[in-house]
């Protein structure tokens, strides 16, 4: 490599580092997320469906009282989703038949590593925090509900019955409590240790360890490790995930990647369209101008031709008239001469 080229590369690197903009930690546009972020591992094989987590969640988040009390077991006969009054719900799945032991699964925001809600929000109300939680800022929210549309897990809910200050409602992974060094409400309340709070990386190790130790008890998959680019809530179960209401067809593509191609075309259109359309405009104007010139030339030509024809006709007519006149004069002269000759001849005769 030549010295000048090396110098150029060095200069490039220096310029990059000196830039005031935050630089990319990972290369080639591949991002692995916040390495020290927290998460929760939900082991459904330990969950007994007591709904203590729902109760604790309701309390720590000051949510309105539920329609049916938390100790009412009949609630579990319906499959529920999160709503504006419940950031988390526990559902029962009778996967082992009506007589076998049911499986319970807790549902709440999965705190995606690349959140679809954040990607969708046009006012930037959602933030993925370095601690792992995806938090929502109601003070800027317009209420378009694109986040509800975008969430692959159908988690965010909306306060449809509030006229003035409706909010999007969803689990915060108890972000304020975690900041204080406390556990999330649901994790703290769980009597069965079905929920484990910790660093996401450690939780994956724990989950794998359990699966390795008890291969008969678990399905060999940690749900949330790769789904939609990875989530901070992770799940291990003994029953196939799809039988417990998990979507297993979500793929591993992070949400922002789905729209990045279309968004990348925006500046291309802005860049190329004005030049292209301006060019077409100039060409069409020019075409019209040339057409007009040709038309004008054709008209002029036609006028000239007509003029020439008219001139020729006039000339011919004039000549004809002249000829006729000459002939008439000649005839008249001849006649006069003849008459004169007759007269002279008659006199002599």
């Amino acid at each position, binding site marked *: 490599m030549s010295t000048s080229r090396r110098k150029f590369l060095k200069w490039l690197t220096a310029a990059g580092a000196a830039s005031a903009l935050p630089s990319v930690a990972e290369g080639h546009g591949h991002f692995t997320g916040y390495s020290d972020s927290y998460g929760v591992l939900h082991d459904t094989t330990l969950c007994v469906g007591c709904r203590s987590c729902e109760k604790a969640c309701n309390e720590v988040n000051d949510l309105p009282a539920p329609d049916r009390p938390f100790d009412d077991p009949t609630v579990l006969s319906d499959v529920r989703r999160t709503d504006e009054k419940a950031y988390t719900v526990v559902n029962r799945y009778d996967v082992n038949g009506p007589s076998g032991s049911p499986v319970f699964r807790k549902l709440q925001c999965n705190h995606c590593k690349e959140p679809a809600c954040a990607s969708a929000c046009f006012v930037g109300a959602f933030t993925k925090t370095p601690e792992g939680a995806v938090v929502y800022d109601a003070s800027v929210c317009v209420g378009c509900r694109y986040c509800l549309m975008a969430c692959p897990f159908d988690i965010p809910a909306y306060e449809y019955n509030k006229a003035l200050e409706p909010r999007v409602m969803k689990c915060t992974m108890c972000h304020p409590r975690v900041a204080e060094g406390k556990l999330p409400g649901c994790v703290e309340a769980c009597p069965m240790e079905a929920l484990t709070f910790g660093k996401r990386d450690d939780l994956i190790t724990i989950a794998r360890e359990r699966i390795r130790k008890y291969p008969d008890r678990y399905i060999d998959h940690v749900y949330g490790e790769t789904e939609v680019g990875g989530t901070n809530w992770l799940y291990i179960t003994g029953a196939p995930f799809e039988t417990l209401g998990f979507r297993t067809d979500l793929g591993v593509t992070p949400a922002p990647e789905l*729209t990045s191609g279309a968004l990348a075309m925006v500046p291309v259109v802005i860049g190329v*369209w004005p030049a292209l359309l301006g060019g077409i405009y100039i060409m069409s104007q020019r075409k019209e101008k040339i057409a007009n010139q040709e038309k004008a030339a054709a008209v002029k030509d036609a006028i000239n031709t007509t003029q020439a024809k008219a001139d020729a006709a006039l000339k011919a007519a004039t000549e004809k008239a002249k000829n006729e006149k000459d002939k008439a004069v000649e005839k008249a002269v001849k006649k006069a001469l003849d008459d004169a000759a007759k007269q002279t001849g008659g006199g002599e005769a």
Partner: protein
Amino acid sequence: MADEPMVVERPLLSKFNVIAGLIILVGLWLTFKRFTGGLGAVSNLDHSNPWGIWIGFDLLCGVALAAGGYTTAAAVEIFNMKKFHAAVRPAILTGFLGYSMVVFALLYDVGRPWRLPYPFAVNQGVTSVMFEVGACVALYLTVLFLEFSPVALEWLGAKKIRAVVVRLTILLTILGVVLSTLHQSSLGAMYLLVPSKLHPLWYSPYLPVFFFVSSIAAGLSMVIFEGSLSHRFFKDKMDDEHRKSANDIVLGFGKGCSMVLAAYFAIKVFGLALGNNWNLLGTGYGLWFMVEMLGFVLLPCLLYAIGVREKNVTLIKWTALWTVLGIVINRLNIVLICFNWQLPADQRYFPHWMEIGISVFVITVGIVVFRFIVTRMPIFFEHPDYKEAH
């Protein structure tokens, strides 16, 4: 003189005014309910179905059907197709009113409409496709307003300001096409985020292209369709140029639309191949997909072509209506019918009558304003002071 426009009496208590008045009264009552009781008081929207007909019909169909503004302006001002000149003003007016209605309907749909400037003024969520849609719609509404303003200025007699705006025509037209390309396609791109909820026959990485191309077909068809309606109801307001060029416009736009639909059909088939979704054609949704593709894309494409060859203006006009219907079906498929297709039937969305009521109210207000403008301002005729001036 036979060419002199006859004046049609439009009495205050006409059938139109009475019906429109009643709809507006109901609309005002629904508005009161919406803004005192929240979205839940007037709609069937829920957590799993956050977007209903206000987005599916008023916004997505409204924007697509208002595409006549940019397509006609581009044809006349950029491509210099002078024989379509008489179509520009009605198309711009429809575009302007169409987009105004979209924004009007949006005020009901979003939770806190007074915050609509927030994405630009307070916190810019630039990763969202919706940010781009919002920015483009806001800018394009301004462009349409400026493009329309010479009409109002002629009516008001403000010659100097009019001259300034008219000088900007080509700039505004190009900007209008740029903005329309962007937001028409981005409305489709918004659905790129929901591969798990939209049926795979309708979900495609090509969604933005589908939306853009079909918006051209929608715009051209709307110009034809609306032109035929205007000829029926506002013929007395039209001058000779407008009446004489009407058939040229129908034939020209019909030909254009036929080509656009052919291209649209092709890329839809390419999209099917791209996703390798052939096997889904045999399902119920597949049947519905084929109805849309064959009945509302390929059929109008052929009918337009036949109409143009046979110079059958009536056939083209009916085909325009059919195409418009097809675009509406396509948009409703994406937002409502094929969205959340995996949810059990009892969790699917069906609009509340009050949602439909508000939609009807919004459209009625649009028609009333359209009627007000075309019966007063130089839309279907040239203002005597500005003949040959543009």
